[in-house]
């Protein structure tokens, strides 16, 4: 089994003088600073020789005191070993420019686009540096820099100017804030690039082709995003995706709240998975502080996260059924009824239905109430029985099989190249699960299976989710048997959280895949940078290639089988 030390020594021998600083972090993490001109070669070497074939993401940090930008590339492996390589590249603040990794990893595309539009770092060799999340008005102001004058902004609504275009549509223009104008930070020349509509229209070639907007307002998929498909009759030729309609700027907001105040904000990252988001953030900060939660707290966290996984899979599968059936399709409503029972179990502990804010640094907020074990075991028995019925329903329903088999197939190599993770990756025959490959909490003591399927079509993805409900039930029962009594908060948690300067990266198995939080602290009581790497970002990036050549009716089916949650993409 390769360890971080092996990788480091191999790297140092292959590229002498390139590795500037290196550190072996806890839990098999390799932190290294690489010279900027050698980053592509180093990544290629790691990918070819040491199986680092999973590009997790990239984070850009603004070190304004040192006059530098840092870009950290996160590399991991799809099961060959458990090492995570975090390679840092420094570039001066006046003319920031980093070499792009899109030649090596296909899914580096959107991560680098986002860092460009938020921080202004130019990526050399990137095929399409266009805005992703921001509207055209905010281009060129680089909102996530530390000296951005347009934050905090309390007057957006007052400054808005309403205009009516020549076709009768209403448009708004919001001029810069007073702070920006006073500081003279308004760029006179905005960068010029073709807008989203223009880029689409360049692709229309034939007379019978038209662009169909599955516009921001969707009937059932939660969260607005714009999916334009170029259709010829009933077949799709190309798909375009525009996100950013609910971009709140969470990472910038979290830099201006204390660590404790940031916990409710991470809830709202993906509202159906708020407990795992909390867990990822608190785990990263616990690494910075060097504390660990006591055993009882870890068991409580595991129980609640698995319960949350059950309810999220029920809702996700139900929504998918409405997308291929209709909103009045009964099994969707039966799944909602079951989900309500699971939610009431969670609510008896945390007190809320959706945004819990339950996990704290060093423990959890509340203890389990009396009678929780009996209530939960009853609910789990009912969930098991109902899920058996749903599986049987799908196996025996011939319309369902006709709509789902062979639709949206992701082969194993394709799924790995596109960078998806979670149930879609496991449905394409890759057993990659954070609970097994990067164990956190007490999952290494639990006995469970990682569910995989071979076919990789939409039916396999739904089956993986339904089977995971059974595994979650089993894990919860084991936890309820083994849970010890004891404290729920660690002893030495400081009242004012001020970690020492450093960085931490923590990964959890979110309901939709691999979620990671990258937290940088500079010694004050507010973080210097928080980066949330969500799984649905990769799904959306992988959607346009998947949708080529299918029918219109299959577009919603494929998008639904991926179980999207737009809030996590836009953050």
């Amino acid at each position, binding site marked *: 089994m390769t360890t971080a030390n092996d990788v480091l020594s191999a790297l140092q021998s292959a590229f002498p003088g390139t590795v500037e600083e290196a550190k072996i972090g806890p839990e098999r993490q390799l932190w290294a600073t690489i010279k900027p001109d050698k980053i592509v070669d180093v990544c290629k070497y790691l990918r070819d020789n040491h199986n680092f074939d999973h590009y997790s993401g990239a984070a850009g940090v603004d070190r304004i005191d040192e006059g530098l930008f840092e870009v950290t590339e996160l590399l991991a492996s799809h099961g060959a070993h458990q090492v995570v390589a975090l390679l840092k590249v420094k570039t001066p603040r006046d003319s920031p420019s980093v070499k792009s990794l899109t030649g090596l990893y296909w899914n580096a595309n959107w991560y680098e686009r986002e860092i460009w539009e938020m921080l202004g770092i130019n990526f050399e060799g990137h095929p399409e540096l266009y805005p992703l999340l921001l509207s055209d008005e905010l281009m060129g102001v680089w909102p996530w820099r530390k000296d951005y004058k347009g934050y905090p902004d309390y007057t*957006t*609504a007052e400054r808005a100017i309403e205009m009516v275009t020549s076709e009768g*549509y209403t448009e708004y223009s919001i001029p810069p804030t007073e702070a920006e104008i006073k500081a003279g930070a308004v760029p006179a020349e905005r960068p010029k690039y073709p807008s989203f509509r223009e880029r689409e229209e360049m692709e229309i070639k034939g007379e019978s082709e038209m662009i169909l907007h599955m516009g921001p*307002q969707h009937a059932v998929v939660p969260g607005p995003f714009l999916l334009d498909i170029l259709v010829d009759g009933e077949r799709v030729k190309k798909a375009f995706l525009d996100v950013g309609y609910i971009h709140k700027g*969470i990472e910038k907001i979290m830099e201006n709240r204390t660590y404790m105040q940031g916990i409710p904000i991470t809830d709202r990252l993906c509202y159906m998975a708020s407990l795992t988001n909390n867990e990822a953030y608190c785990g990263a900060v616990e690494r910075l502080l060097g504390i660990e939660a006591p055993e009882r707290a870890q068991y409580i966290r595991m129980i609640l996260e698995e319960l949350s996984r059950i309810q999220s899979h029920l809702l996700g599968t139900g929504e998918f059924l409405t997308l291929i059936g209709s909103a009045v399709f009964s099994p969707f409503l039966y799944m909602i009824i079951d989900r309500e029972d699971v939610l009431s179990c969670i609510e008896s502990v945390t007190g809320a*239905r959706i945004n819990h804010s339950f996990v704290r640094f060093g423990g959890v907020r509340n203890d389990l109430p009396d009678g929780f074990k009996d209530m939960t075991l009853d609910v789990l028995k009912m969930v098991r029985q109902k899920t058996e019925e749903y599986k049987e329903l799908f196996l025996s329903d011939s319309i369902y099989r006709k709509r789902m088999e062979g639709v949206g197939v992701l082969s194993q190599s394709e799924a790995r190249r596109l960078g998806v993770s979670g149930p879609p990756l496991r449905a394409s025959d890759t057993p990659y699960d954070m609970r097994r490959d990067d164990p956190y909490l007490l999952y290494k003591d639990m006995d469970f299976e990682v569910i995989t399927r071979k076919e990789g079509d939409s039916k396999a993805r739904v089956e993986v989710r339904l089977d995971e409900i059974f595994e979650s039930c089993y894990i919860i029962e084991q936890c309820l048997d083994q849970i010890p009594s004891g404290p729920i908060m660690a002893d030495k948690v400081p009242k004012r959280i001020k970690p020492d300067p450093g960085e931490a990266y923590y990964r959890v198995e979110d309901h939709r895949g691999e979620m990671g939080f990258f937290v940088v602290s500079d010694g004050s009581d507010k973080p210097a940078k928080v980066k949330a790497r969500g799984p649905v970002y990769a799904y959306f990036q992988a959607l346009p290639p998947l949708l080529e050549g299918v029918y219109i009716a299959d577009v919603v089916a494929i998008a639904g089988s991926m179980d999207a949650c737009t809030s996590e993409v836009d953050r």
Partner: protein
Amino acid sequence: MGISDVIPLPVAVDKELEKWTIWGRPLTDVWFTTTEKIHEIIDMGPIKNVLNWGRKNSLWFLMQPMGCCGVEMLVFGCPHYDCDRFGIFPRATPRQVDVMIISGYITRKYLPAIKNLWEQIPEPKWVMAIGECAISGGPFYDSYNIINDTSKFFPIDVFVPGCPPRPEKFIEGFRQLQEKIKQREDKRGY
């Protein structure tokens, strides 16, 4: 235009008629139109009450989950908190709805889209703002991308606070809207 256009009479007759008044109003003025009279009769009382009874008992809303409160909106139409009991029904196209529910954060990029959706809804129409983010920006009130004050752009009738509010609160919000329609106190003045 005058009577000399209809019957062959000299134009001087027209000029003379324009000077006459009766009950303080010039004789040749437009006294009332049929449409105005119909509106006045309807506004008087009983007919308007019947119309408002019909409108308040069958409010159809736009399926538009935007943020965290959107998940609660999906659940709102489902068995435990059934909204079909009150005649409330979700539709997918803005042409066939009466109520638009703002259930989440409005950002700069989405504001023109939602305003165009609002303008496509035929009258009579109402807006409900659900959740803190729709009312005042919520926990992201100081972000560069969030619209803080949605009531500047839409005439919001009912605000439902909470982050997110429970689906029972949605029902209460709709009941308040029904009361407002019945008492004719809604913002658009129907």
